């Protein structure tokens, strides 16, 4: 199994301030469907226009589970902006999702006045 956990997933992506999120699910379970719906709704609310969501079904691609150290299903991984964040559960607790993704509602609601630029990575 590969031990590459954090590196490859980020280095090939441009850090343009967009939120790149990856949701790991396993089949069309109730929890998975709930998580997907909750995520879409949440992003539209807080990150409109500056997010990308990638849904990975581990039933189809089981080899991807080890790479991102997935144990719990569903797991949401914030690949960018750095650092990598992991949130598990069906994302029903919006407050915790905000904390988990490190989003401050008041600042993020005004896109031009985005907070202090994060340290750029090559």
């Amino acid at each position, binding site marked *: *199994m590969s*031990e590459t*956990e954090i590196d490859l997933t980020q280095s090939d992506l441009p850090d343009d301030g967009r939120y790149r999120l990856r949701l*790991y699910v*396993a089949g069309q379970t109730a*929890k998975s469907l*709930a*998580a997907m719906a*909750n995520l879409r709704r949440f992003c539209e609310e807080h990150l409109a226009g500056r997010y990308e969501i990638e849904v990975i079904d*581990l*039933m189809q691609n*089981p*080899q991807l*589970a*080890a790479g991102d*150290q*997935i*144990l*719990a*299903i*569903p*797991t949401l991984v914030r690949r960018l902006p750095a650092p*990598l*964040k*992991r*949130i*598990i*559960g*069906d*994302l*029903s*607790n919006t407050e*915790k*999702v905000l*904390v*988990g993704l490190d989003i401050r509602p008041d600042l993020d609601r005004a896109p031009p006045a985005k907070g202090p630029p994060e340290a750029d990575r090559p």
Partner: protein
Amino acid sequence: MNEPQAQPDAPPALPKAATGIEGFDAVTFGGLPAGRPSLVCGSAGCGKTLFATTFLVNGATRYGEPGVFMSFEERAEDLVANVASLGYDLDGLIAKGKIAIDHVRVERSEIEETGDYDLEGLFIRLGFAVDSIGAKRIVLDTIETLFSGFSDEAVLRAELRRLFGWIKDRGLTAIITGERGTGQLTRQGLEEYVSDCVVLLDNRVEDQITTRRLRVVKYRGSPHGTNEYPFLIDAEGISVLPVTSADLDYPVSEGVLPTGIDGLDAMLGAGGFYRGSGILVSGESGTGKTMVCASIVDAACARGERCLAFVFEESGEQIARNARSIGVDLARHVEAGLLRYEAARPSLYGLEMHLARMQRDIDRFAPDLVVVDPLSALRGPDAELQATVLRMADLLKGRGITALFTSLREDGGLGRDGDIGLSSLMDAWIKLLNVEANGERSRTLYVIKARGMSHSNQVREFMMSGSGLSLVDAYVGPAGVLTGTARAVQEAEEAAQDLRRRQENRRRQREAERRRRSLDRQIEELRADLEAVAEEEAILLDEDERREAALLSERRVLAVRRGGER
């Protein structure tokens, strides 16, 4: 263990997966339950991970069963490095697709829980790893780490129950390791879920000496050894050492093991010791015990027999060097692979461990002769010491191995108070005694006992010289037993007396000769006289005859004349 005979007949024998761990498979009559999870628990540093890794590696290399190692603690690289010291080439096995390692990182700080979840990801990873190499065995080390990463214990417990069910459904032989908890076998009570087979590892320190022990706490549907067995982790891996108490029904050998010490063989009625017997060589330090052993070992190796020596006070090389001074070359036997020295300080292990290590080495080396030098170096509580020595003797006798023990105590005792009778366990007892007299010490040797054979009851003086050991008859005479210089003086005196006796004898012989010769001479003279007399006699006789003849002729003439006259 309880009913060893009844078991082989029982038809629905539980299928078992051999671990390849020496001794463990014997204790469990075949290994772990195949296709089921087993729990291996113990406190930190007691060898859980090693046990599990050995199970996997042996499965992959010996039993054609690939395995998955799912590590919740160590990273794959660390794991590979850790077991490399045991000679396990995990990287090689991974490259060949026989073993897969998946490191599951559980980091509480990185995980934010936002609602319902399950551990399907773990199942998927495990399933993927199992399928990718066709694994038959898996190890989960240590799954309790999950409890530190996730806060919802109810979910975790449900998922663990599901996981163990999943393992059974897939028919995987699994080892789950668990840290020892207070009041229960594992911290999170894993024994509640994994109930087929539970193995407890323990690492106990007594008198500053550590002994690793293993116990099969339960094994559903199978008999198993219930004792605590010592186990060993060293460069040769992990081995469990069931030191079973032997019965007194060993095969008895009639063969004789000559000692190679001329005088000693002559003292023993059979010309040596019986093979398979236990021989005690006792004597204080400096009496030559080790050299006696070295001589016997040398003789045995020279006959092509295999010898294994457990030495507690010297290294093998040191003994070999010292033996060279008496003209015994042990190094060549070591090189030829006939002789092996296992040197260890007595304090290195506990008694159980020493015994266990011995058993393992004996079974591997298959020696004809085993030397334990000195047995009295083993330390421990008296009761344990006696049991250990008893089992050691049984162990060797049960295998028909001749055993040579040395003891520093002159009376052959053992232990602090010396009330442990060692001598009665032994079949033969050679006692070496330094006799101090006239300002010098000399080495003497007694055969105190030799079961089943006549033996000399006399004391012998034994000498160490560049040409080996030799026994000299001690002087036993009117002046008592003399050894050393006293013996030499006595011998010189006897020699002088002898010389005087011989000289006297020769003188008297000469005297007799002279007398005989003088008598001969007298006989000669008498004979000469006799001859002279005889000659004289003959002459006289002759004259007589002639005179008679003359007379006769004269008478005739006279007669003629008288007739003429008539």
